[in-house]
């Protein structure tokens, strides 16, 4: 703020000064000039709570606008005859069917079955792939040796292997959880390996110059440095776990949301089918959100982008 404009403002603006100008004009005068700690945010007055609330509501409205528009389209398109209501019932009918499914306990039962398989497989994948990835990433020759093989596995669609899993492990829970584990392992493993490989070499040099032992170096430098990239892998795996599971449940299952969707379609219970689909997508979004929240907690230090 230049002093030139400060002195000019009162001259141009006579009796009723705008509130913003008043604050700006009076504030700097009593404060001593050399601020001990430049850029300290502590002294700044808190934002007006009402204005903050308004801003948050506006942000919420903006963010939900597209979803609301989709729901509106879904409701009106079948009613106006733009889509066949037999195959695409209005969203209100789907909501009713969803409520019915929830009340008679079917939805809960299928969702539970799916979540157990999906989170179980996902959890196992995290427990296996993160330590394995750290190990492989640390031994560069091993990473170089296994890299191409891992790429082949990663790029082989997990569902293409479903028949193999069924052949080897039968049609029960084992094969379903296994296919989820399989599909989740690759993104976590590959991201973890590259996270270790990409750890800032200067930081490694620093730790070495301080004569840190390898386990210490891992604990204090490599591990924290890898958290963001590992979490990217974990989030990808989270999405994959649900994707793969639903498909697996469509083949030879007696419970689960995939089964519910498939069976409803078979029985021509179309609103129920959409109810299942909506539930799947809600779970997917919620799961991702959860992982994003954990990620933020673990990496508050990152440069805000």
């Amino acid at each position: 703020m230049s002093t030139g404009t400060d002195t000019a403002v009162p001259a141009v603006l006579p009796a009723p000064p705008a509130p913003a100008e008043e604050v700006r004009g009076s504030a700097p005068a009593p404060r001593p000039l050399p601020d001990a700690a430049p850029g300290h945010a502590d002294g700044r007055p808190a934002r007006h709570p009402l204005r903050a609330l308004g801003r948050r509501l506006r942000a919420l409205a903006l963010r939900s606008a597209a979803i609301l528009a989709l729901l509106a389209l879904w409701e009106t398109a079948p009613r106006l005859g733009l889509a066949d209501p037999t195959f695409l019932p209005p969203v209100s009918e789907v909501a009713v069917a969803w409520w019915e499914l929830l009340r008679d306990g079917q939805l809960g039962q299928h969702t539970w079955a799916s979540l157990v398989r999906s989170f179980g497989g996902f959890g196992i994948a995290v427990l296996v792939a993160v330590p394995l990835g750290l190990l492989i990433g640390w031994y560069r020759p091993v990473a170089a040796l296994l890299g191409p093989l891992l790429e082949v596995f990663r790029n082989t669609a997990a569902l293409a292997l479903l028949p193999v899993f069924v052949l080897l492990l039968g049609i029960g829970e084992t094969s379903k959880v296994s296919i989820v584990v399989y599909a989740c392992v690759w993104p976590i493993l590959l991201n973890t390996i590259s996270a270790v490989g990409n750890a800032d070499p200067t930081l490694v040099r620093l730790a070495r110059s301080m004569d840190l032992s390898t386990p210490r170096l891992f604990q204090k430098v490599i591990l924290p440095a890898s958290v963001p990239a590992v979490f990217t892998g974990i989030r990808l795996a989270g999405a994959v776990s649900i994707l793969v599971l639903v498909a697996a449940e469509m083949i030879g299952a007696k419970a689960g949301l995939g089964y519910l969707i498939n069976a409803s379609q078979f029985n021509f219970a179309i609103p129920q089918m959409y109810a299942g689909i909506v539930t799947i997508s809600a779970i997917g979004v919620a799961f991702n959100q959860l992982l994003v929240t954990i990620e933020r907690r673990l990496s508050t230090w990152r440069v805000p982008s």
Partner: protein
Amino acid sequence: MAKIVFEGVRKTFGDFTALDGIDLEIESGEFLVVVGPSGCGKSTLLDLLGGLSTPTAGRILLDGKPVTGPGLDRGIVFQQYALLPWRTALGNVEFGLEATGVPRRQRKARAREFLDLVGLSGFEDRHPHQLSGGMRQRVAIARSLAYDPDVLLMDEPFAALDAQTRESLQDELRRIWQRTGKTVVFITHGIEEAVYLGQKVAVMTSRPGRIKEIVPVAFGERPGTGTASGPQGEELRSSPEFARYRHDIWTLLHDEVARAQQLEKEEASV
């Protein structure tokens, strides 16, 4: 007995000879600046002294004992700061202390003390991305000083900073050196920086890196300890003595730079 002795040190990487015939003695509490053209093996020299790599031939003695690996008796300050981005300024200084086995409670107090020494009181809780380049390097210097090494090894620590920040950190470093009495080995490619900081300036040749000449630098009654009263800052930099030293070292380096560029050109055209 000299604090650090290089005896006929040679370092090769495959067919490439980075350093050859390095003989050098550094006294305890001395401030030595090594200056040379880029790619002359200055950083290799520091790596060897830091114990991050071993010489192909010859040996390096620290307090009369050969250097066999890294240790907390030497602290390295890197050009790229090497701060842990997930730790605060205080946490980064504590990082150095964690390796020494100082109890947790004392670590914090000591870290604060050293942040204060480099003029960063009030910034303890900032993360590196919230600090300017100069502040980051101050944190790195505080970290290296906190675990109290005898020798401070600095690898072009101010090269990434703007001119004004660099000059103020140079003054700060001299002040810290005078207060702590550390032996400092400072690598740079800046002639003015070398003349301003060093008690001795070792000029290196390029490819293979050798010590061409060691120029002792003394400015009349420049303050030895405590509060400054002699010439400092701009006054010193614009003095005729300073210009003479600058010119001498420039002349020594000039041929080397020309030769290094010639070599680079030849390599690029192959």
